[in-house]
């Protein structure tokens, strides 16, 4: 599974992209798993209220299933415009 990180999530984790093997069933499960990867990951994901997720480039809720997701992205609330 390809993971993408943006904005301060990318900065905290130290990379914008990583590839992992996971059996996580939902976005929340995936986050729980990622927090164990490193202190940087744990710090980046410490405040879930400040994080949004996209599965295969569609914004989803945190309890969304991952099924056959190829790409999951994490980022703060958007601030375009």
């Amino acid at each position, binding site marked *: 599974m390809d993971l993408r990180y*943006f904005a301060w999530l990318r900065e905290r984790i130290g990379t914008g992209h990583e590839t992992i093997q996971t059996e996580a069933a939902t976005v929340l499960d995936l986050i729980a798993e990622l927090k164990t990867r490193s202190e940087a990951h744990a710090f980046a994901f410490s405040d879930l209220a400040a994080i949004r997720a996209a599965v295969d*480039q569609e914004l989803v809720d945190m309890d969304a299933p991952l099924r056959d997701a190829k790409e999951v*992205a994490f980022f*703060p*609330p*958007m*601030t*375009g*415009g």
Partner: protein
Amino acid sequence: MDVRVQDAPFDMGAELNRFAAGVDGAGAVVSFTGIVRGVASGDLEAMEIEHYPGMTERALTQIVGDAVARWDLADALVIHRHGRLSPAAPIMMVATAARHRGDAFAAAEFLMDYLKSRAPFWKKEITRSGAQWVAAREDDENALARW
């Protein structure tokens, strides 16, 4: 319908003229332009805009499609820059054309509300004293409730 996500600067006036020239029959053209403004501390050196290539175009195309389905529009345009922008530079613009102004105004506001909270862009303000990610405004999320 045109969605453009680009690093390059754009000329909002030239874009407005080109857009209006292409919408024969529409009496009402509305534009919104977002411009890099100063920060309270007054020493903004640049605005860096990060985005999510692929999802950005997908999200914007979806938002424009929703607007077209909902209002009677002759055309709609979205341009959004990413990368490093100077103070006073245009960040993005939307334009809408319709037979009646009510549709053009409503669709432009709808596009802006959704673009703000649903298109994957993130702004970072670079000042002499450091850099800071712009926080999302609660107002922007709440604005979606009216549609």
